[in-house]
C-alpha cells in the first residue's frame, strides 16, 4: 500500500480539494489584504495608499458604533441562548416520548433559513398586522400594538427574540450530547449519596458537560459577531444606522457605497477578531480529541 507510486496517487486524490482551497480561499485572502491597502472602488480608480484605510477605520465613528453594537448584541444573546439551551437540554435529557418530541420541535427552526425566519418575525412584530403585538395586547403586557423598529434597543430586542427561537435548539443539542455522555455510574452514585436533583445538576451535570457548553458558547458567539441577515431584514439598520452590525457596515461600504478598499480593511479587522475566537474553538476541540 505504501509504495512510492501510491504516494502520488494519494496526492492526486487530494489535489482537487487543495486546488479549490488555494484558488477560492487563499488567493482571495491575499487579494483582500492588497485591496485593503488601495483606494479601490467598484467605480474604478484604486491607488496604493498603504495603511490609510486602517487609520481611517480607527477614527471612523460609524465603524466603531457598528462594532460595539455587534459586541453588545453578542454579549446579550449568547448567555440567553446558552442558559435556555442548557435548561432545555436538562428538561429533555430523558428518552421519554414527550421529551424526545420536545427536543425535535425545539430543534426544528435550526434547519430553516435565517432569512426566512427573520421575515416571519418581521411580520409577527409588525405594528399593524403583527400577531405577536396582538398577543401581547391580549394578555395585557402592552396597552396597544407598538412599533418595534424605530428605536435601536427595541429593534435589537425583536431580533433577539426571533434569533433565540431560531437557534436555541442548536445549543440544546450540543449540550445534550455532552450530558448524555456522562457515565451512568457517577449519576447513580450521587443519588445513593442522597443528592437532590439541583445538587446533581450543579455538582455533576454542569461541570461534566462544561466542555460542550463552552464549545456551544464559542460557536454561538462567533455566529453572533457575524450577524447580518437578521438585521438587514428586520431593522434595515434603522433608526439612522444605529442597528448596523459589523458585517452590515462592511456590506454597506463595499456594495452600497462601492468603497471596496475601505470595506476590505474593515473586513480584515473583523477577521482578526473572529479568527482569535475560532482558534480558541479549535484548541478546545483538539483538547477534547486527545482527552
Amino acid at each position, binding site marked *: 500500500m505504501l509504495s512510492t507510486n501510491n504516494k502520488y496517487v494519494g496526492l492526486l486524490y487530494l489535489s482537487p480539494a487543495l486546488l*479549490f482551497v488555494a484558488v477560492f480561499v487563499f488567493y482571495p485572502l491575499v487579494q483582500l489584504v492588497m485591496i485593503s491597502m488601495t483606494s479601490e472602488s467598484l467605480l474604478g480608480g484604486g491607488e496604493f495608499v498603504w495603511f490609510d484605510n486602517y487609520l481611517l477605520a480607527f477614527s471612523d465613528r460609524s465603524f466603531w458604533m457598528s462594532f460595539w453594537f455587534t459586541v453588545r448584541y453578542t454579549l446579550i444573546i449568547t448567555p440567553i441562548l446558552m442558559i435556555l439551551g442548557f435548561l432545555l437540554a436538562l428538561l429533555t435529557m430523558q428518552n421519554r416520548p414527550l421529551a424526545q418530541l420536545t427536543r425535535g420541535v425545539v430543534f426544528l427552526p435550526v434547519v*430553516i433559513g435565517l432569512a426566512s425566519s427573520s421575515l416571519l418575525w418581521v411580520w409577527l412584530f409588525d405594528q399593524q398586522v403583527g400577531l405577536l403585538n396582538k398577543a401581547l395586547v391580549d394578555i395585557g403586557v402592552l396597552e396597544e400594538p407598538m412599533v418595534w423598529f424605530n428605536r435601536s434597543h427595541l429593534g435589537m430586542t425583536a431580533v433577539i427574540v426571533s434569533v433565540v427561537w431560531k437557534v436555541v435548539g442548536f445549543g440544546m443539542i450540543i449540550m445534550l*450530547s455532552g450530558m448524555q455522555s456522562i457515565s451512568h455510574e457517577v449519576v447513580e452514585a450521587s443519588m445513593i449519596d442522597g443528592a437532590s436533583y439541583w445538587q446533581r445538576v450543579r455538582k455533576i451535570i454542569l461541570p461534566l458537560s462544561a466542555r460542550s457548553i463552552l464549545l456551544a458558547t464559542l460557536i454561538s458567539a462567533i455566529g453572533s459577531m457575524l450577524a447580518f441577515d437578521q438585521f438587514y431584514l428586520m431593522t434595515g439598520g434603522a433608526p439612522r444606522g444605529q442597528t448596523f452590525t459589523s458585517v452590515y457596515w462592511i456590506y454597506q461600504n463595499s456594495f452600497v457605497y462601492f468603497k471596496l478598499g475601505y470595506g476590505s480593511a474593515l473586513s480584515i479587522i473583523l477577521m482578526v477578531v473572529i479568527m482569535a475566537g475560532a482558534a480558541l474553538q479549535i484548541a478546545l476541540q483538539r483538547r477534547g480529541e486527545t482527552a
Partner: protein
Amino acid sequence: MTDLASPATSLATGATDARVVGGSRAVGYLVAALCLAIIALMMAPLVLSFLASLKPPAEAAAVPPQYLPRSLSIENYRTVASYQAGLWTYVANSLVVAALTIIFCLALSVPAGYALARYAIPFKEVFFLLILASMMIPYQAMLTPLYLMFSSLKLTNTHVGLAIVHTILQLPFSVYLMRNSFEAIPRELEEAAVMDGCTSMQILRRVFLPLVLPGMITVSLFAFISSWNEFIAALIFMSRETSFTVPVMLTGVSTGIFGVVDWGALQAGVIVSVIPCIGVYLLLQRYYVTGLLSGAVK
C-alpha cells in the same frame, strides 16, 4: 413526530433513568406540562405563518389581525407564484445552486477524505490543516475579493458562481467528515480487495463507496440546507432579477410595492422557503444530528 428525536436518542448512553429527573408523580406532570408549553411556543410562529398564508389577501392585511383565517384561499400563493420573474424561476435557481453545491462538495471531499485516511502523503497534516483553516476565515469578510474575481471570470449572476461560494462554506466540514468516514472502515477489507487484484480506483468504487454512503448523505444534506438558506452571498452575487434565489426574492416581497407590503404573500413565500428544509430534515434527521455533532463536538 416521536421519530423526530430518535437521532439524539441513539446518542444516549446514560442518564436515561427516570429517577434522574425527580421521582414524584407531581414533578412528572409539571415536566410534561412544561414540555407541552414549549412545543406550543416553538410551533406557534410557523403555524401562524402557515395559517396567514392561507388567508384571503384582504384578511391577511386586516388591522387588527385575527389569529385564525375565517376562510381559506390560495390567492397568496398565486401572488408569489407570479412575483416578478415568477416564483418557480427563483425556486429553480435555488435548487440548481444547491444541487451544484452538493456535486462540488462530494466531488472534492470524497477523494480528499479517501486520500487523507488511507495514503501516506508528504505534508499530509499540513494539507489537512490548510483545508480546515479555511473554516476559521469568515466568508462574509471574503466577499469583496471573491466578487472582483467572479466579475472578471463572468461568474456573477451564474449558478456555478454562487455554488462555488457555497462550496467554500461547506468544504472543510465535508472533507473532515469524509476523512472520518473512510478512517472508520477496517483495513482488512481493502487488503482483501488488493489481494483480489483490485486497482485503487476499483477499491474506492466497489469497496469504499457503499460504506461511506452515510457520510456522503450527511455531506449532501448539509450542503443542501446551507446553500438553500444562504443569504448575503446570494444577495451580492445574484443581482439580476432573473438570477435571484428564494431568500433574495423574499427580500423584494418584504420591501413591498410603493411601501405597501403584501403580508399574506410574504408568509406564503416564507412557507415555500421553509418546506424543503423541514422536509429534508424530517426524512434524514439521523444524518443531520450526527453530522452536526461530529462537526461541532468531535
